[in-house]
């Protein structure tokens, strides 16, 4: 099975290809300017300059000051630190209630569970069937003892974009810290922490063609952070450890590149995305997950009745298509995706999910090929599915009409 086949990568929400420009920009910080930015000599100071320059560039793209940017190892660390910091602040004031949503990333949900065990009360807002929450829901959930609202900017599985500016407005009014996990959004849609009244924001470089293992946490001036890693005085003492200069420089370049091309890319991606959605909608008893309009330009998520997601992924991989699924079997647990369950997909349906996330490198030809491949594989798997037999024979009723 080693025949050379064209590969179509449609898993850009998992990670993206590192941009050539990014790689080029990173290299000098490994073999020439490899100094430690904490060192006083010139090689160290050159690295310190690069660090400051990257911080300024990233801050500018987010609409904040460089003093409000803290570098971390990625989205998960940023989420953990943001939430635990807000909890520490809350606890000091006797406020131990947090509002979040049922379909957050596990980096948020598991941190909230940890806080729950420490006596915090967590309200997880329910998600509508089209994958959205409303600012009104947040408003109604905030109590006098609420210390944090954490709502993801865009969902990683179904791509829906939440009304962040409206939620920010409410939180600012009520004087509650507002954190958003913007890992899927930054570099893909316009994010402005000031305009959107965001107090804390998590981002990760490898989701926008930057390197893996690097991310940032934006924290509005005046909000004290709690450090998760103790040691040196890096990142104003809030995140010890020698800064990963090549990765930080790479992240800044990747963000600049993504933001400069955002409009052009979004236009292209939206077209391809809609083509994919239309193509896959033609498969009988299939359903798009998440709102058709209020979603990331590159995200397509479907459920197909009567089949299981992992088989679908393996057979698509045989056809050269790299896709992903909210399917449990791929993650080692038997429970289907909490995101799909949160938008009301029943277990039977949630097991048959497929997520395709595009990049600007994809073409119309890729989309056409993919639609055909998915149609074939779904039909093939349904052909051997006892559930499908029961459905078409009328023994069971279709859930997706």
């Amino acid at each position, binding site marked *: 099975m080693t025949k050379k086949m064209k590969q179509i990568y449609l898993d850009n929400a998992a990670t993206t290809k590192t941009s050539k420009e990014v790689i080029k920009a990173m290299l000098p910080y490994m073999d020439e300017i490899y100094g430690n930015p904490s060192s006083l000599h010139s090689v160290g100071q050159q690295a310190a300059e690069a660090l400051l320059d990257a911080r300024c560039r990233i801050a500018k793209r987010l609409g904040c000051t460089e003093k409000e940017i803290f570098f971390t190892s990625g989205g998960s660390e940023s989420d953990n630190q943001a939430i635990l910091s807000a909890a520490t602040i809350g606890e000091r004031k006797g406020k131990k209630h947090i509002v979040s949503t049922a379909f957050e990333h596990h980096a948020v949900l598991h941190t909230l569970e940890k806080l729950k065990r420490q006596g915090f009360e967590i309200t997880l807002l329910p998600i509508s069937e089209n994958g959205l929450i409303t600012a009104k829901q947040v408003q109604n959930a905030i109590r006098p003892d609420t210390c944090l609202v954490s709502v993801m900017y865009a969902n990683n599985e179904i791509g829906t974009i939440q009304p962040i500016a409206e939620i920010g407005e409410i939180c600012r009014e009520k004087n509650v810290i507002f954190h958003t996990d913007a890992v899927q959004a930054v570099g893909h849609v316009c994010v402005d922490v000031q305009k959107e009244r965001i107090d804390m924001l998590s981002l990760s470089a490898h989701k926008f063609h930057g390197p893996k293992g690097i991310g940032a946490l934006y924290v509005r001036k005046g909000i004290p952070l709690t450090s998760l890693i103790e040691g040196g005085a890096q990142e104003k003492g809030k995140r010890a450890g020698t800064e990963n200069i090549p990765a930080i420089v790479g992240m800044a370049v990747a963000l600049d590149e993504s933001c400069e091309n955002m409009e052009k890319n979004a236009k292209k991606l939206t077209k391809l995305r809609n083509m994919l959605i239309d193509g896959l909608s033609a498969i009988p008893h299939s359903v798009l997950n998440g709102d058709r309009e209020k979603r990331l330009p590159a995200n397509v998520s479907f459920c197909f009745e009567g089949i299981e997601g992992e088989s679908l992924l393996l057979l698509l991989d045989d056809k050269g298509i790299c896709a992903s699924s909210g399917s449990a079997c791929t993650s080692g647990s038997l429970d289907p995706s909490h995101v799909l369950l949160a938008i009301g997909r029943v277990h039977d349906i949630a097991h048959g999910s497929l997520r395709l996330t595009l990049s600007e490198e994809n073409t119309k030809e890729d989309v056409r090929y993919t639609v055909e491949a998915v149609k074939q594989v779904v039909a093939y798997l349904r052909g051997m*599915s006892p559930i499908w037999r029961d459905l078409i024979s009328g023994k069971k009723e279709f859930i997706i009409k």
Partner: protein
Amino acid sequence: MALYSEKVMDHFRNPRNVGVIENADGVGEVGNAKCGDIMKIYLKIENNIIMDVKFETFGCGSAIASSSMATELIKGKPVSEALALTNKAVAEALDGLPAHKLHCSVLAEEAIKKALQNYYEKNGIEYDKTKFPNCIVCHGCDC
């Protein structure tokens, strides 16, 4: 993908004995859609020999491969041998399964047992009920 052995991928890509036997002598279905896998086994039995076996499976790669392998292992064999098939034998014949996928081989064993039980019941054949789990549980998930 390195998740599975070559054997598993072979049986997943080219499953043996997929389909339905009309007027089967024994039919067994285990699992449920909620857990993400259902296996259905059809048996044709003559003179205590499994003359033909077919399966239908809704499930992941290892569920399909386990069904395929299990049907191969019992086809043409006496009923007593089919009854003695263990999930371990299915997993071993597939050159192993990842730990969290072992329940797929269990489903294959149980589907065959259930189909045989159905055959006994249908034909009024006395059998040792203790050899059959009276409740086919879905391993690994709480449903």
